[in-house]
């Protein structure tokens, strides 16, 4: 459904430019040869840290941005040569809240964007009513978007992207900035789309989202795809496993391979694979006689979190600090 071959993107910026100074030219390689094939009906998550190249890749697929080199094909159509045809195949939800006309109501926004997709007005209205039902906004048809909460705007943006029944939906960080209820509401909509078989390419840096929604995950780092698979496969391949994080009131003596992180105030944290926890606790208990005491034990549930940090080169003990 979507294929990318050798896609690169280099941004050119000018540093220290002024009124009468052109500044120093600098090239930033945002994408470095992305090869990718997404099958019809797949729900693909694109996971990466800030600045990894996620949004750049999505914008290129969405025809908003021209690649420096490479080929992007959506449903058999070249996205660089025939962007208008490709745009009919895509529903796109960009990051941020300003993706709708705030002075217009929910229905007026949907009718406008339905018109931009060349839908007859009556069909656009019927489709809008269905979509507002789908995203839980049927009680807010005639309310202007400026009165909406962030979560409502995001759900309306998803409805807007679906107005012409696109075979492909592109989402850029759809839940950023939302509270847990807002996140759950958006996820509910996305789960329904997954069940319907809509092809989705979604960028995120939310581990929970990456673990729960996509059927396939791509991890991108510094413009390159690092790995590809289901969240479970990626976690298993990276050697990541469920970890226990111990908070200790003094520095313990531990075996090699276990990293101790100083938290300050005489407190230390220690991450240990679950399988080694009983032995370590026994050891600490024995050491406790000499003054080492256990303050707290927590479990790092997200194996993907750890896998991501391993793959993207962050030290493991830092991972253990995260919630």
């Amino acid at each position: 459904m979507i294929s990318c071959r050798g896609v690169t993107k280099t941004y050119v910026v000018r540093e220290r430019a002024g009124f009468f100074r052109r500044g120093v030219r600098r090239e930033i390689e945002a994408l470095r040869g992305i090869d990718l094939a997404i099958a019809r009906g797949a729900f693909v998550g694109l996971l990466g840290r800030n600045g990894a190249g996620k949004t750049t890749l999505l914008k290129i697929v969405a025809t908003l941005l021209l690649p420096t080199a490479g080929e992007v094909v959506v449903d058999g159509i070249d996205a660089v040569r025939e962007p208008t045809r490709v745009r009919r195949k895509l529903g796109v939800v960009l990051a941020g809240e300003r993706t709708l006309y705030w002075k217009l109501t929910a229905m007026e926004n949907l009718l406008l964007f339905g018109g931009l997709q060349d839908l007859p007005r009556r069909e656009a209205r019927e489709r809008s009513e269905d979509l507002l039902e789908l995203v839980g906004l049927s009680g807010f048809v005639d309310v202007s978007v400026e009165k909406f909460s962030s979560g409502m705007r995001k759900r309306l943006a998803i409805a807007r992207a679906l107005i012409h029944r696109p075979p492909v939906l592109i989402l850029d960080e759809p839940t950023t900035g939302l509270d847990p209820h807002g996140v759950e509401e958006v996820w509910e909509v996305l789960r329904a789309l997954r069940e319907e078989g809509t092809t989705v390419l979604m960028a995120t840096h939310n581990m929970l989202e990456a673990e729960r929604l996509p059927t396939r995950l791509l991890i991108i780092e510094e413009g390159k795809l690092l790995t590809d698979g289901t969240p479970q496969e990626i976690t298993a391949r990276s050697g990541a496993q469920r970890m226990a994080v111990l908070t200790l009131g003094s520095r313990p003596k531990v075996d090699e391979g276990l990293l101790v992180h100083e938290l300050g105030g005489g407190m230390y944290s220690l991450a240990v694979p679950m399988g080694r926890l009983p032995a370590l606790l026994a050891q600490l208990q024995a050491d406790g006689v000499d003054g080492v005491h256990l303050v707290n034990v927590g479990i790092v549930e997200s194996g993907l979190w750890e896998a991501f940090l391993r793959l993207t080169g962050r030290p493991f003990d830092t991972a253990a600090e995260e919630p």
Partner: protein
Amino acid sequence: MRSLLALVRKELLDLRAYPLDLLSYAISPALAVTPYLLLARLFGFDEGLVDSVAVGLLLWYWLSTLFWGVGFGLQEEMEEGVLETVLVHPVSIFTVLGAKAVVTVILNLYITGAMAAWFFAFGVPLVFPWPAFLGLVLLGGLGVSGFALGLAGLVLFYKRVYGIGDLFEHGLGALSGMTMPAAHLPRGLWLVSRLLPLSYAIESVRRVIAGDGVGPEVGLLVGLGLAYLVLGHRLLAVAERGMRAAGTTGEF
């Protein structure tokens, strides 16, 4: 066509959000040009000349609002942050600006009605041939649209170009003979005025008022207008491609 209609409808719905703007449209343009008319009356010019000044101002006003409405049309979407969302739809940037032009014409009809009432109250009834006026506005609009598309391209590239907009609007107005026939300009400026389609539009409409009919300058008006339109179209297309290549579609 559905895209254009949807965009026009959106622009008109936007007006609903700020209803007092409609009052401003009824008053401000008239207040801006009335002093010129009163001066013409004060110095005892005959009615024909007063009409000539009025029509020059009116024509300039129509075309300058078209210039601003289209030229800065994309700036509204950029400020609202919705330009990128519009650009991922199968609608050309020229259609978006076309909708701005249609709404500008609708607003101008409203403004002209208000202006005519205003002038009438000041003892300057606008009794000139409206069909010829509107026809010449349409033809003058070709060239002005070319400048406006070029300006829209500059907006995409530089984001803020109010200075250029002012320069073009007032420069074009003065050089085209808005308040004084271009023939009275110094020779150098007169030569520049010969390159501006608006000069021929104003001269034509004044000729019609004087009862001389449409002159040969209409050919130049159309020819130059089309040339500027092609140039403006090309500049905007290049700017759009540059923006998509540079990745600045979301910047403002």
